C-alpha cells in the first residue's frame, strides 16, 4: 500500500530479568489503520520468518479494558495519546519517517521479565491485602435493600474503572502505586458496603504497598495524565485522608 508509514523503531530487548538489555533498531512499514500492537505483530511475524526471536510484549483483550498491555512509547506509558491503553493506539497518530522508542515499564516493584514484559504481580498482592469487601457467597441481602445515591454510585464507578495496567507506576518518577491503591480504597470508602472494613483496608493496603517497594507520592500528577482510564488524583487525596483518619481512629496499636 502506498499510504503506509515507514518508521524506525528502537525496541528494548532483554532476554531475561538479569540480563543486560539494549535497544535494537527495526525498520517497519505499516498501515496507518493498524494499531501499535498490530505493528509489533507484523514485526514479530517478520522476525519469526527470519528465524529470529520475536519481541516479547503482553496484550490480551486489545480493547483497552484488560490492562495486560503496556509499554512506554517515546517516554510515555501507552504512548502520546490520552485515556487509551497501548492496544488502542493507532499508527495514524505517528508521522512517516518518525523514530519511535519502545521501552518496558520501569519501576523497582515491576521487574522486567523479558523484553517489554514486566511482572506486575505486586498489584495482586496489594488487592489481596485488603482490596475487597468480606462477604461470603449467599449471605447478601436483596440488592435494592441498600439505596445508593446515583452520584455516589457514579463516583465509585469512576474509581472502580481502573484496569490495573500499571501505567501510573511506570510514569511516576517515584515508582509510586498511589493512584492504583487509592482508586480501590476510594471505591469502597464511598460505598456503604465498604464501611465495616474501611479503616483496616486503608491501613493494610498502604502497608502492603510500602512493603513491595513502591515509592511515595510527590503530587506531580503524571499518573492521572497517563492513566488510560483517567482515574483522578482526587482518589489519592481521598486515600491520604482515609489513611490518616484510619491511623487516628482505629484501635490497631500494633502497626
Amino acid at each position, binding site marked *: 500500500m502506498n499510504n503506509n508509514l515507514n518508521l524506525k523503531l528502537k525496541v528494548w530487548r532483554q532476554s*531475561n530479568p538479569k540480563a543486560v538489555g539494549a535497544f535494537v533498531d527495526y525498520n517497519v512499514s*505499516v*498501515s496507518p489503520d*493498524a*494499531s501499535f*500492537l*498490530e*505493528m509489533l*505483530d507484523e514485526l*514479530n*511475524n517478520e*522476525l*519469526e520468518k527470519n*528465524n*529470529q*526471536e*520475536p519481541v516479547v510484549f503482553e*496484550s*490480551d*483483550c*486489545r*480493547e483497552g*479494558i*484488560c*490492562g*495486560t498491555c503496556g509499554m512506554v512509547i517515546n517516554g510515555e506509558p501507552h504512548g502520546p495519546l490520552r*485515556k*487509551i491503553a497501548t492496544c*488502542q493506539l*493507532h499508527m*495514524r497518530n505517528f508521522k512517516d519517517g518518525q523514530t519511535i522508542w519502545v521501552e518496558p515499564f520501569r519501576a523497582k516493584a515491576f521487574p522486567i521479565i*523479558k523484553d517489554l514484559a514486566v*511482572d*506486575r*504481580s505486586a498489584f*495482586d498482592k496489594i*488487592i*489481596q*491485602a485488603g*482490596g*475487597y*469487601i468480606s*462477604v*461470603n*457467597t*449467599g449471605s*447478601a*441481602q436483596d*440488592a*435494592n435493600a441498600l*439505596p*445508593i445515591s*446515583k452520584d455516589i*454510585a*457514579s463516583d*465509585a*464507578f469512576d474509581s*472502580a474503572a481502573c484496569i490495573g495496567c500499571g501505567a501510573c507506576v511506570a510514569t511516576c518518577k517515584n515508582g509510586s502505586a498511589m493512584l492504583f491503591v487509592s482508586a480501590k480504597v476510594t*471505591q469502597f470508602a464511598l460505598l456503604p*458496603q465498604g464501611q465495616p472494613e474501611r479503616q483496616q483496608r486503608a491501613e493494610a493496603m498502604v502497608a502492603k504497598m510500602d512493603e513491595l517497594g513502591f515509592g511515595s507520592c510527590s503530587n506531580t500528577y503524571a499518573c492521572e495524565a497517563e492513566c488510560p482510564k483517567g482515574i483522578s488524583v482526587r482518589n489519592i487525596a481521598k486515600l491520604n485522608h482515609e489513611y490518616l483518619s484510619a491511623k487516628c481512629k482505629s484501635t490497631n496499636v500494633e502497626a
Partner: protein
Amino acid sequence: MGILDSKVPAGPIESKWTNHKFNLKLVNPANKRKYEIIVVGTGLAGASAAATLGELGYKVKAFSFHDSPRRAHSIAAQGGINAAKNYQNDGDSIFRLFYDTIKGGDFRAREANVYRLAEVSGNIIDQCVAQGVPFAREYGGLLDNRSFGGAQVSRTFYARGQTGQQLLLGAYSALSRQINNGSVQMFNRREMLDLIVIDGAARGIVVRNLLTGEIEKYSGHAVVLATGGYSNVFFLSTNAMNSNATAIWRAHKKGAFFANPCYTQIHPTCLPLHGESQSKLTLMSESLRNDGRVWVPKKKGDHRPPNQIPEDERDYYLERKYPSYGNLSPRDISSRSAKEVCDEGRGVNGGEAVYLDLSEAIKRLGKKSIEEKYGNLFDMYANITGENPYDVPMKIYPAPHYTMGGLWVDYNLMSTVPGLFVLGEANFSDHGANRLGASALMQGLADGYFVIPYTIGDYLATTKFSPVSVTHDEFKKSEEGVKEQVKKLLSIKGKITVDEIHKKLGRLMWNKVGMARNEKGLKEVIGEIKELREEFWKNVNVVGKDNDLNQTLERAGRVADYLELGELMATDALNRNESCGGHFREEYQTEEGEAKRDDENYRYVAAWQFENVGKWNLHKEQLEFEFLHLAQRSYK
C-alpha cells in the same frame, strides 16, 4: 439416550433445583479441607467458583495463564447482566427469563439447567452489590435496568459499558480475599496442557509454567475447568488474543465429550475489518441497539455519505423484517440479516458494513444523555476508526464472539469424565443454539457462585478416593507426552509462521463454518482443515526455546488444537441437517429466509466422543420440552 445421563431431577420445574439441593450429599465442614479442588481458569466462572469453594473450606488450587486473574476476558463484556428481579415492574419473572433464554437458544438447551439459571440470577445481583460492584442506579438510589436483544422486558443490570469488568473485579476481589486467607493457592502464568484421568476420574492436571517453560504437575480430588470459549478458532474474533480452547480440548481428548461444537455466535455489532494486519475484531456493545437504528441504503451502489442519504432511501431492515423486536432482534438473526444485505451489495460502500445510527436518539435524548450511557463506546469507536460517531453513524459488521458449544455437562455441571466439572462458556449447558445478550455473565457467575459449590460437594461426598500423588504413572506419562509435543513443535523449523497458519484456518472457518453453512462447503472444509493440519505439523516455524517465556510456542500449541477442533466444528455442522440459532444451514430455511429447525430429527445435543484425531463418535442427548411448548422462533 445412550451413555449420556443428564441427571435432571424429577418434579415440577420450579422445585427441581430446591429438591436437588436437599438431596445432594454434604461434606462435613471439618472434612472439607481434606479435599483439594483444582480450578483452571479464573475469569467470572472460575474466580467465583474458586472463591466460593475457598469460603466453604475446600483446599483450592487455581490456575490462570494470565499474570493476574483480573485479566480474564470476562472483563471485556460491556453491556450487562440479566436477572429476573422484576424491579421495573414490567412483567418479568423467573419463568419469563427461562422462557426467553430457551426461545432465544432456539429450543436447543436443556430446560432444567436454564430454569435454574433464571432462578439464581437474582442472587447474583445481590451478591455482586454486596461486593461493592458499582451498578448503575436511578436518582432514588435503586438499581437501574436496560433492555437487551431477545427480551421485551428491562432486566439487564449494568455498570456503564464496563459491566464485565466490574463483575470480574468483584469475583477477583472475592478470590483475592481467599488467597489472602490461604484457602486458595493461586498459580498465575500456567497453561493447562493435559488432564490426568486415573481410574476413570479426573485427578489432576499438567501445566506449563509460561515464564520458565517448566512442566508442572498438580493432583486433586476434582478438576473444575472454566477456561472460556473457542471463538479464536476463527483467528479474527472479539475474543482476547490469548483466549483459547487448549484446556477443554486436551480434556476432550482425555474423554470429556464435546457438545454442539458448531453452535457459534456471530455478534452483530462489531467494528468492520480495517485491513490485513488486523489482529482481532472489536465489539461495540449490543446495548447500542437500544437506542440505535440499523440500516443500509435501499439502492445497491449508493455510495453517498450516510448523512446525505434521505430517510426514504434508507432500509431499516431489522425494523422492516421484525417489527415487534426490530433493532433488538436476537444476535443470530441480526447478524445474518446484516450478511444478507451486504451480500446483496447494499453494505456501506458496497463492502461488509452496515450503519448503526444513533442520531435520532441523540436528537431525542440529547447528546449528554447519550454520552452518559454510551460515552466510552463512542470514544472507543472514534479512537479506532478516526471518525466521530456523534456526527457520522457508526459502521458495524458481525464477528465471531461466543461459543455456545463446549464440553458436555450434566445437571451437576460434571462432564463425561467423573470429577471433571466445566463452568461458564467452556460448557455447553445453558444457551442452546444462540445466547442472548447479557446472559454470559449471568451464566458464568451462576455456575461459579451458586451451582458448583453445591454439586461438587455431592461428588466429593459420594466418591471413594484412592490416594493419588503426582508421582503416579499417569502423571509421568502425561508429562512425557506434553514435553514430546513441545519438542516436536520446536523441531519442525519450517517456513510458515504460526500466525499465518492460524489466519488461514480462520479464513476457512469464517467462509465455510461461519454465519451460513452448506453441505458442500462443510465437506470441502473438512478436507482443507486436514490438509492445513498436515502442513502445520510439517512446515510450521516455532522459534525460541522451551525453557523460556516463548509466546510463539504458546500460540503454536493452541493453533495445533484449533486445527483439530475446527474439523469437529465442521463435522458437527455437517451432521446437523437443520438451521437453529447460530447454526444456519443454507439448505434449511423458510421461504422468508428464516432458520428452519427440524425438531423431529435434531432435537438433541450432539456430544462428540474423541477417538482419534479426525475421528469422533456421536452420542445424542435427546432434549425434552416438558414445560415449554416447542415453537418456531418468531421475532416478528
